[in-house]
């Protein structure tokens, strides 16, 4: 099965568009597989993703169940990672917290990547005043540090997960627009685009069917590299009390509370800290590997 897929995908003379596309994907995968750091990153991402999805099955305790008799307990057989200030099981909270974090990250990326893609492609393809206006707007949002703008926006809306998503999304799209625009500029005047236009394709068709797909790989790389920064921003918001609110088991919010007793009960702080660290490190490893594979400038 795998070998037939392999020969089919690596065929030098693909007979269909689908075969060519899969061949390209498979070659990327082969190149990525040679990068040990990227593979470690991928493994951790899949691991944490699996933990988050399966949290209800895996968590030994209810993440909200309080047990004040056993508050701030050291790691033990019953509570692998110990308990927090209300006697809640930290392992279960970390598992459920992964759902909050990954949920936030996914919703942000789903909003941000397409918006950045469309803005960048439209600006790059049409040029002129459209380009100027769109890029000025992009510049304005780029001229704020991401966390500061997100903080101010969340404060203006209302602290919570939804506002954090909106705020981070508003601060995260400009780099994608920049990248998509740069990519568009390099292909805009190529012959195949001219051929499309001569064949009577409308500007919309040219942008959406012919230019945008070419911008997707670099945007994907950027998204992967951005993941860790989005996770960190989300956790920082939670830590500063502006993101997910307690009792939500979001990792940053957990840390904010654990900070109070970290000098004696350090394990309460250690687990969420390690979770944030591992996941964002994993995304960075993966993104770095992907860039090496996908970025044509490197080869």
């Amino acid at each position, binding site marked *: 099965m795998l070998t037939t897929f392999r020969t089919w995908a690596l065929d030098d003379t693909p007979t269909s568009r689908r075969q060519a596309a899969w061949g390209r994907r498979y070659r990327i995968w082969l190149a990525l597989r040679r990068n040990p*750091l990227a593979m470690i990153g991928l493994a951790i991402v899949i691991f944490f993703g699996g933990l988050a999805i399966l949290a209800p099955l895996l968590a030994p305790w209810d993440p909200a169940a309080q047990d004040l008799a056993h508050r701030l307990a050291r790691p033990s057989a019953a509570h692998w990672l110990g308990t927090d200030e209300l006697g809640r099981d930290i392992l279960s909270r970390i598992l459920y917290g992964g759902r909050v974090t990954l949920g936030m990250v996914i919703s942000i990326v789903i909003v941000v990547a397409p918006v950045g893609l469309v803005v960048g492609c439209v600006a790059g393809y049409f040029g002129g005043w459209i380009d100027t206006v769109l890029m000025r707007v992009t510049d304005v949002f780029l001229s*704020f540090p991401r*966390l500061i703008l997100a903080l101010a926006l*969340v*404060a203006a809306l209302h602290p919570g997960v939804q506002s954090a998503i909106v705020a981070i999304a508003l601060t995260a799209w400009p780099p994608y627009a920049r990248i998509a625009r740069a990519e568009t500029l390099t292909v805009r005047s190529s012959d195949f685009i001219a051929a499309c236009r001569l064949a009577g394709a409308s500007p919309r068709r040219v942008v959406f069917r012919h230019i945008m797909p070419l911008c997707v790989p670099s945007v994907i790389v950027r998204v992967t590299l951005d993941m860790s920064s989005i996770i*960190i921003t989300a956790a920082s918001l939670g830590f500063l*009390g502006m993101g997910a609110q307690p009792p939500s088991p979001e990792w940053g919010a957990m840390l904010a509370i654990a*900070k109070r007793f*970290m000098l004696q009960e350090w394990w309460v702080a250690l687990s969420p800290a390690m979770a944030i660290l591992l996941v964002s490190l994993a995304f960075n490893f993966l993104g*770095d590997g992907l860039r090496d594979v996908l970025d044509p400038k490197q080869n």
Partner: protein
Amino acid sequence: MIRRLKSLGSQFGSVLATLFGLSVVTFMIGRVMPVDPVIAAVGDNASQEVVAKARAAMGLDEPLIVQYWHYLTQVLHGDFGQSVLTHNEVASDIAHYFPATMELATYALIIATVIGVPLGIWAAVRQDSLTDQIIRVICLAGHSVPVFVLALLALIIFYAGLGIAPGPGRQGIIYQDMITPVTGFLTIDCLYAGDWDAFRDAVAHLVLPVSILSYFSLAYITRMTRAFMLDALRGEFIVAARAKGLSARKVVLNHAFPTIAVQLLTVLALTYAGLLEGAVVTETVFAWPGLGLYLTKALMNGDMNPVVGCTLLIGLIYVALNLLADILYRVFDPRVS
């Protein structure tokens, strides 16, 4: 010449446009509040009449565009309004807190540069070796660790565990308010006052937050230096220098490095801007009395004038540093026309 003027003009225009956008965004943030500022000022129990009067007094009954105009003229006069909570002028509050942040960011940048640039050059010269891989992992880790996680870990280890670092804050209690601020940089003020004990205390308090902040930017500086250096080492003039029999050290330091120096300067300018962001989180962990602590306190209380003031100021610094980076590029790099 005309082309040059034209490009300068368009750059000036783009900066103006960005500043305009900045003011609009901060204005909007200030207007969309969770708490009605009028109610916050007069209290829940005020009568309709009082509320209406206060609303008019605050200029909030006028159309949005007029309000924006008021906001803009105020800001241009350096007036960011008052804090609802303390009734202090936001502008003087910022003037009071900002030097502490600057001190943190400046020392962090200096240390990050001194370590990061050689590290990046080293990684580039030894491309793909074990050294390069280790440096790469160190840098990626720097990108991945949230500042507050590192800060908490550092406090646990060095303050609570080993007891060799002083606790949070900028000064020990006995030195509090002993030094008259001149520059706002505590270390310099101590030296100016000739108080060596206070100076040692200030430096000791700086060590942890500065190390953490500098690691954060070191990752970026090292990475960029490596990329620039790799690019420079591919140049034909490097092959020529090597062919002439120059030592590897001379090739790298005297021939390759000068070509990337300008690019590095622009990176440093941008890093400094990024440090301000890191400082906000670091300050909350270390209880460092700077802009970040001021900002987060205001955020907690929904006190929007300080929030808007700080956001605007940091945005302005960002724009200014970007502009500076651009100008440096144009002035010092003959390859940019």
